[in-house]
């Protein structure tokens, strides 16, 4: 029995039918297709989160100058309190990243409506914490009891002279976090992007999209970009702010790091403002270098290209020795990756820099385009769940500007893959496995069958893996380490892997009285 059948055989007929299209083995010469972004199966321990998690937890939460109020009972707000390790620092001391605000709805609020409490909560927050921006994220009950959070937000804007933005990101919407990303993208597009036409913008200006600054990743990336001479206008949304995002429409180019969570903004900005976007990956050395070169190519200035090469060689010289040392100890190891919607792709590149082969990769909440490439987007059938998430109709803004000639645009499409993303599968080797929405049961089975040396995932499956005698590294929170991006991050990542694989405890698992006699004698 092959691996796939071995796993699927444990399921009943219905589950079998549903899961079989989410699991495939790479056949390099074939065009393959995978099922993704469909409803999770009840009861089989999916690792997915909810719409609220995608909106508040991922996209809106890291905005440091914004007081994000969770409208709902206490749990949801509490569970998103500082768990993503989005780092942020602020020059003026105004930093809400350490805070958790909730309306802490009680039974009477559910029965009689919670909008009064929400209004009072905003009043209090404004009075005490003096935020310039307030965002409201709703949880399951809010949509069901029909609190009009958008009306409350509009009234608060008028009364307090702040920006107030409401997101109807009730947990039951969509099939995973992904719906929440889209809702958050829409909100930022409608209200924040394009709000500031005044602040000065530097030369070679870019926005960094889909960088949440987990463990300081964004800081390392920004450091490199600034060193070369780019002006990073805004970051969506790690260490980001409404203040910066308001002027993002005037940047020359959008760099897309996490395709899944932020591609909506990239597309909408292209339509409204003519801002081109470029898929980049600052995780991995080759990937970082390629991204930097593509970026320089976009602007085309020779000073930029020269400076890019200069910085690359400077940075590489600093880390080469360390990387070589670690690579030596890592080469030949096998890894499995199961993360959200982009990292399982990004980290394959870094692993390959270190000589580690990826035998399994999967996404928690990605869509087919994240696996197969954007060109299949028009083949994706809309289902009931995706229809429930609003898709904005974008018109050209009067500030629309195209900075490329049509010829140059076509040229760049070919040379640097402008506005394209080819997905995770094309990069994977023959015989590797791709699994969408991997669940607890399948994780255990794949571990037994593929025997990887390292399993990269999150806290929920960390201990299953660890208890199976396998190194687990969390790629959501980096196990309190990081940054892993750029040049310096690669060294930290490599060090963490070696440290984990060579932890003395692994060798001590079997007590001497259980070891084979000859081993004891030896």
């Amino acid at each position, binding site marked *: 029995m092959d691996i796939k059948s071995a796993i699927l055989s444990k*399921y*009943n007929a219905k589950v079998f039918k549903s899961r079989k299209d989410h699991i495939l083995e790479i056949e390099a010469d074939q065009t393959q297709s995978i099922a993704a972004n469909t*409803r*999770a*199966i*009840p*009861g*089989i321990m*999916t690792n*997915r*989160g*909810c*719409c609220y*998690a995608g909106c508040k937890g991922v996209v809106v939460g890291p905005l440091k100058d914004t007081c994000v109020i969770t409208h709902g*009972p*206490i*749990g*949801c707000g*509490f*569970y*998103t*309190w*500082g*768990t993503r390790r989005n780092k942020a620092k602020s020059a003026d*001391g*105004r930093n809400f990243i350490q805070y958790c*605000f*909730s309306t*802490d*709805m*009680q*039974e009477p609020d*559910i029965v009689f409506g919670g909008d009064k409490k929400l209004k*009072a*909560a*905003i*009043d*209090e*927050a404004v009075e*005490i*914490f003096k935020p310039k921006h307030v965002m409201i994220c709703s949880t*399951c*009950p809010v949509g*069901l009891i029909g609190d009009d959070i958008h009306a409350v937000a509009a009234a608060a804007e008028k009364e307090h002279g702040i920006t107030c933005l409401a997101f109807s990101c009730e*947990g*039951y*919407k969509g099939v995973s976090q992904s719906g929440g990303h889209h809702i958050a993208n829409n909100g930022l597009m409608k209200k924040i992007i394009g709000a500031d036409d005044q602040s000065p913008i530097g030369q070679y200006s870019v926005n960094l999209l889909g960088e949440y600054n987990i463990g300081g990743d964004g800081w390392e990336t920004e450091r490199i970009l600034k060193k070369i001479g780019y002006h990073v206008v805004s970051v969506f949304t790690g260490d980001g702010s409404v203040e910066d995002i308001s002027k993002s429409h005037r940047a020359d180019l959008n760099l897309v790091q996490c395709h899944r969570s932020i591609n909506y903004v990239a597309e909408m900005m292209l339509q409204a403002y003519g801002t081109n976007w470029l898929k980049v990956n600052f995780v991995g050395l080759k990937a970082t270098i390629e991204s930097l070169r593509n970026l320089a190519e976009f602007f085309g200035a020779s000073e930029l290209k020269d400076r890019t090469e200069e910085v690359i060689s400077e940075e590489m010289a600093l880390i080469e020795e360390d990387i070589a040392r670690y690579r030596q100890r890592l080469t030949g190891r096998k890894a499995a990756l199961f993360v959200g919607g982009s990292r399982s792709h990004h980290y394959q590149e870094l692993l390959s820099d270190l000589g580690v082969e990826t035998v399994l990769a999967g996404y928690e909440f990605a869509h087919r385009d994240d696996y197969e490439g954007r060109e299949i987007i028009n083949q994706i059938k809309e289902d*009931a*769940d995706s229809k429930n998430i609003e898709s904005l109709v974008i018109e050209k803004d009067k500030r629309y500007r195209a900075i490329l000639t049509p010829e140059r645009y076509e040229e760049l499409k070919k040379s640097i893959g402008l506005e394209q993303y080819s997905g995770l599968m094309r990069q994977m080797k023959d015989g590797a496995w791709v699994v969408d929405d991997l669940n*607890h*049961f399948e994780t*255990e089975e794949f571990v037994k069958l593929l025997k990887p040396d390292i399993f990269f995932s*999150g806290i*929920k*499956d960390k*201990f*299953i893996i660890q*208890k*199976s*005698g396998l190194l687990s590294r969390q790629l959501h929170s980096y196990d309190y380490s990081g940054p892993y991006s750029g040049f310096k991050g690669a060294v930290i990542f490599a060090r963490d892997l070696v440290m984990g694989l060579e932890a003395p405890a692994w060798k001590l698992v079997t007590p001497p009285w259980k070891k084979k006699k000859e081993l004891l004698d030896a």
Partner: protein
Amino acid sequence: MSLEWVTSSKNLRSFENKIKKYIMTKLSNICANPCKMCQPLGAITAFYGLKKCMSLLHGSQGCSTYIRRHLATHYNEPVDVASSSLSEEGAVFGGEKNLFKGLDNLIKLYSPDIVAVSTTCLAETIGEDVGAMIKRYLERAPKPAAEVISLSTPGYGGTQFEGWFRALRAVVEQVPMKKVSLDSINVVTGPISPADARELKKTLSALKLNYILLPDISYNLDGPFSLEYNRLPQEGTSIEQISQMAGARVTLELSPFCPDNLSPGLFLRDNYGVDLIRLNLPIGLRDTDIFLKTLKDLGAVIGDDIIQERGRYLDAMLDSHKYSAQGRAALFGEPDLVYSLSRLCVENGLATIVAATGSIAKEFKERVENELQQNQSPLAGPFSVLDGSDFTDIEREAVKGEVNLLVGNGDGRRLAQKRGWPLVRCAFPIHDHVGGQRIKNLFYEGSISLLDHMVNSLCSNLESSFRKDLKNQYFRSNFGQDKVLELDLEDLENNINGMAPASKSIQRPIREYVPKKLAHPCFSLEASHSLARLHLPVAPDCNIGCLYCLRRYDCANESRPGVTSAVLNPEEALERFLIVKKKFPNLSVVGVAGPGEAMASPEKTLETFRLIRKSDSDILFCLSSNGLALAPYLRDLKDLGLSHLTLTVNAVDPKIGQKIYGHVDYYSKRYRGLEAASIILANQMTALKMAVDLGLIVKINTVLIEGLNEEHSEQTAKTCAALGASIGNIMQHIPVKGTLLGEKRKLSRAELQKTSEKCALYLPQIRHCRQCRADAAGLLSDDRSIDFTKPEEGLMDIAAKVENLAAGGGRQVKIAAVSKSGVLVDQHFGQAERFYIYLSDGNEVRLLETRNVASAGGCSRCGKPDTIGGGEARPKGFIDKLVKAVSDCEAVVAVRVGESPQSKLAALGIASFATYESMERAVLAAAGKILTGKSQQTDSSNLAVG
């Protein structure tokens, strides 16, 4: 510029109000930084204490995911919670289909004995009746291969604490019971750690009791590492055990605050007649004692081991009592634990200042308050007990109560970081440390561990801050090294908004590195030990009338500003400078400090500086001024090389100022009252701002006067700091008879110190000021001005000597002189280490002997223990010893003789003379007074002759 001052002071006031408001506001609608979680989380944790039980949450899958991630992070164990994964469709049309599918899949993949279905906000809001659904599910064929328990746990209906008990209640209500009488006892707990559950089991076994523990999370949430991982929780309370609970002798419910409607014990009592005993968690001596006593009554055998444990805890209590008593704790978490923690703190003399829970528990406030009122030392002061609170409430009360320790869950880390208080993590959730599952709180051993953690946190804070605190207290003046002044206006604003942690506030550099040659003994304690200064008395006039000042020329027994031997003209000043410089190569600073106001005679002061600058290009200049007429000359002074300025600012509120300044002479007109105080204040602030802008280092002297500006000095420091002053100096008001403020009480050093500390929050303070004479010379600690006064001064009049001889008729008097240097009368009587015994006939002086008395040690000014040097306090009865040592003399000469020794000396017929003189001259003068009968035994007036 006075306008600027007004603006900034107004700013300060409004900041203060904001802080007050922030601290005092009780938030009611917004929960900022919660101290609680939701019901389903509590239920799921409790179900982890059942054998082969899997949980399924009916609702959106996010709830399962979030709860799994939070439990896994704390317990460091796999945590699996299935979900019915309701989507929008389910929310609209009901979730029964999803729930059944979920149950089917879960049972097929995991084969659990029990499936526990809890609800979420979503299911409850759309009105799902899970009880009925599960009934329908169980009636389906084929019959599911697992027991299914269902319960309703909306997130808005309580916290994890209620969720936990709701789960246990559902277990005893829904698992079919066997009514066979057994000899066992049921033990039901609230949320405790797996390690504590294990301890509980060990203890119950050691007591030789048959028991059923509900729930038993000891293994499932803290399992050993082995390569055989099993996805189904293998240990815990089994269905079989649960079904026997109805036949037990008694139920022990270790939870004082379990709500009655959720109490498993009450259910078993009411339905099966099982007796119920409710106890506190066995934490601390008293509650562990009660727990064991109860079990003994139930037939337990208390072994020696446990008695020894008790003894060890008692020993630990005594070992730590000195440190515990310094603790002021804020306790937070679930109600059972907080109550127990408060009782543990109380019995250890560690003050509970805040006891807070995020839940709303009946009687929580009442019982904790009772405990604290009855058993906590009243010395601890007020405390507050909160329920339904968040960390904003806890912070507010903790700041108010000046706590120094946080005890509770790991969510307190943000508060700990912001405020610099240590945090003892002893409850769920702990996400920033490892070992949440291994926390031990129960029984004597657990109490020892808790106590040690608390005390050690206090100790390490003390250890790491002790030197710093001391340094700040005693070496504060080293502003050359103190590169930063914490807390400025920006900080205040940040603190109001709660944005910036106080300890990591934006730090504003007050000075760049100060080169060594700029070191000034009056501005830096370190410099004061090695560098000499010279005050030149060139400015006799004054332009204001301070109500505490009486300026007299030369009174050698007084060393304070405004006192000098003679006024010099600039040329004489230069001469004295040259002489002193020869004698003191370490002379670093020349200053003008009066004896009047340096800038009341600006031409003399400027000329003095000019002359000296010509002969010495390196020497530092400093100036002490009241600031009234300073501003116009600042630029000239700066050009001459003035680097240090001391400004006496006694108040920044004219209403207070008018009680200190009698009059002000300004542009040929005399102002009085409020007008005078306003003028001087505006001019002082102008001069301060200007001096700072010119790059001068400005010290603010404030004379602290009893009942006048004591409370106000903090504001003075704050305002001056805001304008750029570098350093402050709170000075003792030395009441001088004959002045309007002469009857004021001299404030104690302790009072001075307290004010100084308060001011240091805004303006670093020096604390080594000696309030020098206007003609002071040498080191601060060793004033040698007497050596440099004009030679003709102080010479004994020949005629007087003749008169003495005649009056005495050759009689010789024995006189004791107190001296440290062996040359001058330079010590107080009470500080005497040795007496110089002289014989004099009023004409000649002969040294007879020296008499050593044991060293007094301590501070040379107040006799208090010298904390820096580690000296010991003056022993009791020391004064009597001193008096005895001179009992054969007729007089004592000392710098000053205190009232008590004076009267003791007088009782023996010994006269005391206060003086500051060379010993021989002083003895001669004293002898003269005695021989001529001019002495009235005690003479504290000017003894010096000439």
